[in-house]
């Protein structure tokens, strides 16, 4: 029964890991297996884990001991001694019979408690580290699927303990204990049992793993091809049906499936062989115990009663062999997941280290003037600069429109302003003070922010707005919402501010979502508002409404609107255009007035 239950899953994991750009730059450190590092995470929980391993070992040990004592009891009883001689064995048999269930119960409680604790710590460390990295320091930030994948990875890491390491530790305890018992009774039989266990629990799983690894590359490629083709077929179904081309694409799918089948046949054979080998080696241990035990009894080297013990006990190890097979496949899968988690924890932030002794933030009563001078910036791992020699000044009361095609570096400029990315050259100053001298958190406190697609947390509407200023009253939150034209929407919600939004809450339209983001900015009441394509995902009418809200004239606030809509240029006091990371002013009058909306 030694098989790779999840060999295929494991291979898929490795594939995903390959597509993630390597975290950079990584301090040189000796490679340590992610599973070893995971155990390192368990500091403070090690006692519980050890306890769980021992309890688990004792629980499976009970099954083996039950067989051993029963064999002894029956063989001895057949010699018809006074019943009194058997009483200890009778009690032992019953105790072991009860012991397994009870010990397993305790083991489960202790191990789950420990796993919860380790996972809690892991999540906490991840979030703390990600809070530093976010969002520029993590290449996978732009791939939402990988981000949510990380959530599953943490659960997989928990599996590594519950279904991998702990059962393995228990199996080693029981297997070792049984071998010691066998060696004490008849050394040759003990050696045969040890060899049998090594073949069944080490050689056979390794054989499967080796064989799976050989076909892994092909299987991963086929799986990816297949997924892509399935998704294409589903996306294109109307066209394919009308064009009558569905059969052709299904034939392509069949070709991939046939190829996949051809490759997996060898994996199936390897798994079958490994299973057969495990059964054979454990059977051989029993057979050899009988083959060597019988002459030993004849030579009076072995008590005949113990012959029954040494021949029958290995039969009870089937469970242990199977548990090792399961644990091995779980660990293979978890190793990939855990590896990804540590890659995140090893990633270095994309920002320069913060000053140890930051200067106080200048407090100009007129509001901060933020000047960007000759700034160049490059995303980690990128081949070229995203921004080259950019100049920009944000002055209170002035509304700046920054035009640019996608990929021209607009979002990079915002990331630099928000301190998510440190410029490679040039300076950013707040009232003449270089931000490198200031506390990054304090500088960020100058900016309100409205993203392309505002993120709504799985919480109430009120909480989603209130995160901009903790401690704001419900009334202030509602006021902020009304100020951005979300009043009607708010009134239409049966639960009002307590309406749940986000993942599990009510569906929120794109326009409502952007208004929540604006309400956050209003509530936070920061002197500079940065808006990154706030209307990108909205229909023209809503887009205009949202843009107008952002560009409402104000004497004390400065606004930077980043947009690809040339029509927004008329709204700015200053209009700039980014082309290939270079910034140039656009004369207001000359701004293209062609509009994309009817």
């Amino acid at each position: 029964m030694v098989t790779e239950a999840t060999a295929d899953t494991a291979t898929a994991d490795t594939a995903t890991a390959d597509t993630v750009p390597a975290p950079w730059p990584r301090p040189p450190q000796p490679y340590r297996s992610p599973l070893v590092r995971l155990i390192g995470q368990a500091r403070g929980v090690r006692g519980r884990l050890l306890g769980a391993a021992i309890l688990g070992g004792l629980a499976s040990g009970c099954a083996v001991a039950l067989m051993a004592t029963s064999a002894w009891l029956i063989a001895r009883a057949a010699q018809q001694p006074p019943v009194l001689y058997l009483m200890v064995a009778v009690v032992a048999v019953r105790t072991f019979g009860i012991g397994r269930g009870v010990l397993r119960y305790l083991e489960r409680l202790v191990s789950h408690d420990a796993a919860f604790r380790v996972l809690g710590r892991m999540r906490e460390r991840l979030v703390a580290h990600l809070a530093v990295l976010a969002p520029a320091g993590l290449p996978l930030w732009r791939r939402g699927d990988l981000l949510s994948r990380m959530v599953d990875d943490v659960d997989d890491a928990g599996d590594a303990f519950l279904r991998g390491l702990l059962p393995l530790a228990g199996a080693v305890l029981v297997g070792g204990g049984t071998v010691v018992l066998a060696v004490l009774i008849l050394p040759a039989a003990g050696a045969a049992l040890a060899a049998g266990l090594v073949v069944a629990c080490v050689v056979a799983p390794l054989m499967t793993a080796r064989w799976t690894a050989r076909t892994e590359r092909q299987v991963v490629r086929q799986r990816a091809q297949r997924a892509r083709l399935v998704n294409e077929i589903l996306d294109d179904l109307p066209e394919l049906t009308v064009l009558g081309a569905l059969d052709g694409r299904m034939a392509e799918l069949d070709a991939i499936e046939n190829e996949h089948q051809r490759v997996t046949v060898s994996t199936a054979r390897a798994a079958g062989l490994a299973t057969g080998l495990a059964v054979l080696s454990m059977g051989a241990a029993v057979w050899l115990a009988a083959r060597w035990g019988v002459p030993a009894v004849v030579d009076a080297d072995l008590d005949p009663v113990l012959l029954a013990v040494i021949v029958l006990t290995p039969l009870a190890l089937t469970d242990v062999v199977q548990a090792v097979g399961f644990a091995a496949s779980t660990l293979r899968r978890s190793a990939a997941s855990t590896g990804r988690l540590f890659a995140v924890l090893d990633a270095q932030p994309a920002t320069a280290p913060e000053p140890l002794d930051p200067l106080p933030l200048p407090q100009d009563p007129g509001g901060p003037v933020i000047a960007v001078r000759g700034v160049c910036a490059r995303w980690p791992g990128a081949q070229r600069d995203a921004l080259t020699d950019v100049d920009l000044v944000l002055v209170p009361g002035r509304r700046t429109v920054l035009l640019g095609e996608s990929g021209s570096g607009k979002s990079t400029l915002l990331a630099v302003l928000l301190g998510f990315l440190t410029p490679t050259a040039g300076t950013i100053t707040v009232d003449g003070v270089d931000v490198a001298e200031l506390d990054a958190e304090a500088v960020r406190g100058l900016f309100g922010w409205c993203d392309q697609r505002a993120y709504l947390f799985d919480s109430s509407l009120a909480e989603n707005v209130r995160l901009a200023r903790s401690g704001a009253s419900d009334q202030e939150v509602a006021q902020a919402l009304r100020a951005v034209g979300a009043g009607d929407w708010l009134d239409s919600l049966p639960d009002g501010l307590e309406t749940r939004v986000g993942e599990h809450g009510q569906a929120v339209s794109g326009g409502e979502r952007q208004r929540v983001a604006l309400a956050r900015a209003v509530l936070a009441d920061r002197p500079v508002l940065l808006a990154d394509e706030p209307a990108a995902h909205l229909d023209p009418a809503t887009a205009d409404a949202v843009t107008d809200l952002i560009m409402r004239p104000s004497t004390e606030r400065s606004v930077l609107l980043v947009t690809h809509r040339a029509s927004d240029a008329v709204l700015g006091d200053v209009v700039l255009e980014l082309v290939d990371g270079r910034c140039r002013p656009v004369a207001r009058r000359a701004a293209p007035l062609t509009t994309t909306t009817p």
Partner: protein
Amino acid sequence: MRPLDPRLLRYAAGVRTLLVVSVGLAVLSAIAVITQAVLLAGILADVIIDGAGLPDVADRLIALAVVIAVRAGLAWASEEIAKRSAVSVTAGLRRDLLRKAATLGPRWRSGENSGELSVLATTGVDSLHDYVARYLPQLVLSVLIPLIMLGYLFTADLTSAIIVALTLPLIPLFMALVGWYTDRQTKAKWDSLSRLAGHFADVITGLPTLKVFGRAKAQAASVRRVTEDYRKTSMVTLRVAFLSSMVLELLASLSVALVAVAIGLRLVYGDMTLQVGLAVLILAPEAYLPLRQLGTQFHAAADGVAATAKVLEVLETPVAPPGTRTDLPAVPGLRLEGVIIGTPGERGAVGPLTLRVPAGRITVIVGRSGIGKTTLLHLLAGMLGPDTGRVLVEGAAGGSRVNGRATPSAGEAESVDTSAGSATGADSPAAGDRGGSEPLDCGTLGTDVDLADVDPGAWRSRLSWAGQGAALQAGSIRDNLALGNDGVDDATLRAALAWADADGFVDALPQGWNSALGEGGSGISQGQRQRLSLARALARPSSVLLLDEPTASLDADTERRVLDGIARSAAGRTVVLVTHRSAPMAIADQVIELDSDAPVTLPQDNPDALTAVGPW
């Protein structure tokens, strides 16, 4: 959780075969296990009681070796067979699932099912692999092995047989109880577990936002607090949940202990032979083993069972029988009568719609995104049936019948500059000046035919479709253009490329239209992909052209040229173009505006009434 859905047997022949083979292998391996036990017990009893030596038991040792080898062989065979069938079963189900999705049409796939179907067809079906490869064979074993062992025990030793017979049924009973309890009680646990994971995911995804508002650093502590709370509450639940599995384990091992003690006591009084006693001791745990292993496989199976249920639900979704009528006019017109999709007023609902698409003319349908323009095209393509109302093909039984598929000749197609239609049917009027012409007369109007009664194949042969997705695939541009249009000649394709304003960029490629596209048409821009998709639609010898936002990714100049091409290619075709842009209205013979507030109703006798609606 239902261990095996009998419907699966109907849809996956591989599962049937696997079950039959598994039954055979299970019986054989049960016989091998019993033989091994009897041989071992015999050898031990002779040595322990009668003092037999190696020569006395030599032949039985040889037989034992053979049995062990046979058991290994059976284990190999069942493992390999199970894995191989799992691969073919999943492949078959995936195929059936996609075919069914094609039959069910776009509406079924939209809404809640979108995305879900893609997940189901990939990872969902994959999760059936372990269910088929591991759980099903184990299920067979756990039904058969205990029965066979019990049968042997009854012939060997009645007392032990009774102990096993009394406790064995309790195990599936407790499993059912555990399952029931799991369903009921631990549903709450899983809910809170997913809430926990949800909270974590939420925090991670929203970190940039939290960071801007200075709330990021506090999150680590909040995550810790939530996890700690979760640990405390779930440990309380687990203390009870694990109790039932403890009872399960207890039953299995305690009854073996009872059997052993009972045998021991009878042996002391000479009521039983040692050989029988040992054989029973070896076999009693074997009776419980498959059931206990089934429990440990539960984890791998749970995903598979859930996926099975979903797959079967899709496969069993009823489909209305397709229509059979093929007597369609060469250039059909279409009419919607009170068509409603979904529940009016709810999200995604469309209608009520009453409108007419006149034959041989260009109808442009405008409306904001999400109003149901694409759904309307699906209706017209017959991929979607209305919940209320009818979609009618006008004048189907009229004078003009199709005498086979309308095929453009190369000559006609080349004369694009005189706007000759590539799809001019045998009896459609000569192409010429379209401006202000009357709707095409399709001969004497006969009875209209409900689209639901029309043979889908016959209807599709009339249709061309260019959707929002370009539906291009890896291969040369020419192959993509000729997709589903076998035997089309180069001249027709060239003409279509020119209409779609795609000839310029295609010719500019180093290898022209022999240039290869990547997966999903990668290698060219979105706008170029869309124009190729349009060219493909125009090249088809079809008389109904359904175009979904054909100019969505194009700049104004290209858009104008493309629209011009569509107009020129449209002679003798019924064209429906949906868009949220204003430019396409320039080529329209009729404009229909979809608006959720003002349901479109159109007097049947005045099809052009709606041209007046809207600011144009």
